[in-house]
């Protein structure tokens, strides 16, 4: 059966499916992310993971509320803020109460703001925003609101975990920071300066720079600078072709220290780095495929790879989000009153399929979870990425990272 559904012409304009929530068996989750255009890869990958998680972790387990299934409804936001808001509107009109989005903190910011406005203006059909991937710390600090839940570890938490690990490595004396010139790149750099300063005042930051996002054709000059600076570690938040270009250029320029990254895996990146990235590329993330945490998890990943040979599980938090949402709906006893669901999610503790505990911090709706530093390698890899022999392997883990970190979030709760 098809789990991923598309809204038809009728739905968009003729309102044929208006207010179907009344008789719908399924609990619909609107997936609003890029499914066309330059960023479609991450979007379609996320969609596959959502579909699979909903099917495996909820529907096959008997559903929620005594037999209702999750259904993922896809909306292509074309990576545009305005288009996202239009699609959000269509989703809300279709009676959907749960909005999932993850690509781009900018769009997440637009959605969280729009959801907040909508819920204030239309108390009758409020919705929840499940942010499964946007990591700008502001979303759970200054820009937080009651309707937004973040399942990924934010940029600050990841950096906190990363610097915990780096602090133990005495070989690191000089660090170079480089990132894309936008909010996330800046957040990574600021967090690195702050955390390294606290944990390892002796480490010298020999470079801290930003480059225009998606505009650099040749990263070689940046790589040259990094090599010339004498740095023995690099930290970058780059993603997509900016990550590949930067990483390749750094390695080719003769750099052999570790490069700590956020998003240097899958979507062709792992395959492109291949042998050259071994011993250099490291990645910080929640959830690790290697080594498998449990048989249940291994079976889950195997089944996913069999079903979606072209995709990898790169966003393990999606499974967490699906499981916890199901649990919250059951606990609230309703999928229509999202206030109740939100209160059930707040403060929820959960045993993750990826191992370790999950805790939805009530103050700011930021998930607290284990964060792993993983290396790009082809040794002891049970679940490789990109259909290559290479994959990521956890080398150290920070348990319940940043559990007590402060937040500036001031939330109005209904």
């Amino acid at each position: 059966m098809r789990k991923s559904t598309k809204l038809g012409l009728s739905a968009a304009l003729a309102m044929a499916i208006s207010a179907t929530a009344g008789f719908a068996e399924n609990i619909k989750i609107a997936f609003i992310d890029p499914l066309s255009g330059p960023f479609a890869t991450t979007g379609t990958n996320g969609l596959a993971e959502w579909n699979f998680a909903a099917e495996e972790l909820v529907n096959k387990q008997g559903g929620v509320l005594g037999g209702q299934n999750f259904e993922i409804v896809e909306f292509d936001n074309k990576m545009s803020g305005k288009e996202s808001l239009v699609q959000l509107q269509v989703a809300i009109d279709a009676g959907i109460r749960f909005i999932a989005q993850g690509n781009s903190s900018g769009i997440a910011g637009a959605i969280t703001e729009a959801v907040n406005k909508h819920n204030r203006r239309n108390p009758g059909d409020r919705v929840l925003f499940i942010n499964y991937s946007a990591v700008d710390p502001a979303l759970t600090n200054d820009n937080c609101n009651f309707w937004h839940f973040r399942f990924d570890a934010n940029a600050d938490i990841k950096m906190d975990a990363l610097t915990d690990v780096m602090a133990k490595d005495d070989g690191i004396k000089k660090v170079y920071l480089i990132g894309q010139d936008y909010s996330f790149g800046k957040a990574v750099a600021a967090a690195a300066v702050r955390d390294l300063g606290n944990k390892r005042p002796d480490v010298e930051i020999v470079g801290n720079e930003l480059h225009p996002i998606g505009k650099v054709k040749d990263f070689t000059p940046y790589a040259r600078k990094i090599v010339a600076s004498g740095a023995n570690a690099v930290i970058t938040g780059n993603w997509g072709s900016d990550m590949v270009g930067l990483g390749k250029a750094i390695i080719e320029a003769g750099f052999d220290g570790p490069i700590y990254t956020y998003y240097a895996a899958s979507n062709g990146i792992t395959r492109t780095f291949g042998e050259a990235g071994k011993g250099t590329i490291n990645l910080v993330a929640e959830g690790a495929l290697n080594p498998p945490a449990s048989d249940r998890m291994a079976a889950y990943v195997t089944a996913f790879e069999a079903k979606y040979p072209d995709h990898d599980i790169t966003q393990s938090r999606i499974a967490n989000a699906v499981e916890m949402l199901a649990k919250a709906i059951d606990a609230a006893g309703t999928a229509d009153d999202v206030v109740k669901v939100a209160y059930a999610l707040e403060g929820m503790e959960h045993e993750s399929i990826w191992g370790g505990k999950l805790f939805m911090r009530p103050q700011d709706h930021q998930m607290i979870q284990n964060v792993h530093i993983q290396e790009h390698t082809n040794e002891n890899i049970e679940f490789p990425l990109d259909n290559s022999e290479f994959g990521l392997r956890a080398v150290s883990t920070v348990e319940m990272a940043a559990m007590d970190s402060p937040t500036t979030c001031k939330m109005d709760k209904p």
Partner: protein
Amino acid sequence: MDLFFVNIIDGLVFGLLLFMLSSGLTLIFSMMGVLNFAHASFYMLGAYFAYQISTVIGLGFIGGLIVAPIIVGVAGAAIERYGLRRVHQYGHVPELIFTFGLALLVQEVVKFFWGQNQIAYFEPEWLNFALFSIGQNTIEAYKVFMILISMLIFGGLLYILTKTRIGMIIQAALTYPKTVEALGHNVPMVFMGVFGVGTALAGVAGVIAGPALGTFPGMAFTLGSIVFVTIVVGGLGSLRGALAASLLIGWITTFAAAYNFEFRTILLAFGLEEPANIWDSGLRDLWTLTLPQIGPILPYILMVAILVFRPHGLMGKREV
């Protein structure tokens, strides 16, 4: 100082790569008056065809280097013959819009056949080693290979344009497009040939740049408009201008990326005082601005300045 030499080499590599694109485009632009927006799309096709030929079919890198540009050139000539020539009768604006649409279409077609991801098109093993190093920075053999190929093409182009009959016709057509027609040359045929060769050159650039800069559906878009900038800056109808502008832009972008010059230095030199709490200041973006941040837009600033103050470019003979 080491870094300076390394940057000279890196800038040269990128500049010559630009030249391979801009030389073809300037020929096309000057003769036919077509601002071919899809030129970089042929560059992308070159990379993808080369990947298909060298990796999937298995003819090896050299096989791709030889075959892919030919296919791209034939495809370019076909598009000129069956697309552009048809649109030509409607005027220049529809022509430009046609190439604009073509660029979109090529990108979508590439995505359809090869997917969204960066594909596994790499440097050949036999060129994948560090040839020498300056300071701690290593220069890959492949970079030197790129320089050699570009030089070879420039030499060949120069020979054809200055020493052969067809070259004379093309040169004449660059400066006096109408006269050549009056002299009874088969101008449509010349146009098709020039378009084919120009796109084939872009194809070569794609074949050799694909492994170095990455082969992905957005590669045409990131390079597309900068190629225009190059020919406008260089001046219409001037191959030497295109070369000069390519190298200039290659070095500008390289050096702008290489030196972390901060604008606060300038501001301080003007006797301005840095705000105590920079993050609350309305001018914080100006105080924290660095050269690498604006490096990629410097060519555009250069272009606008050139168009406003010297519309025929560095070495052009007539106005754009």
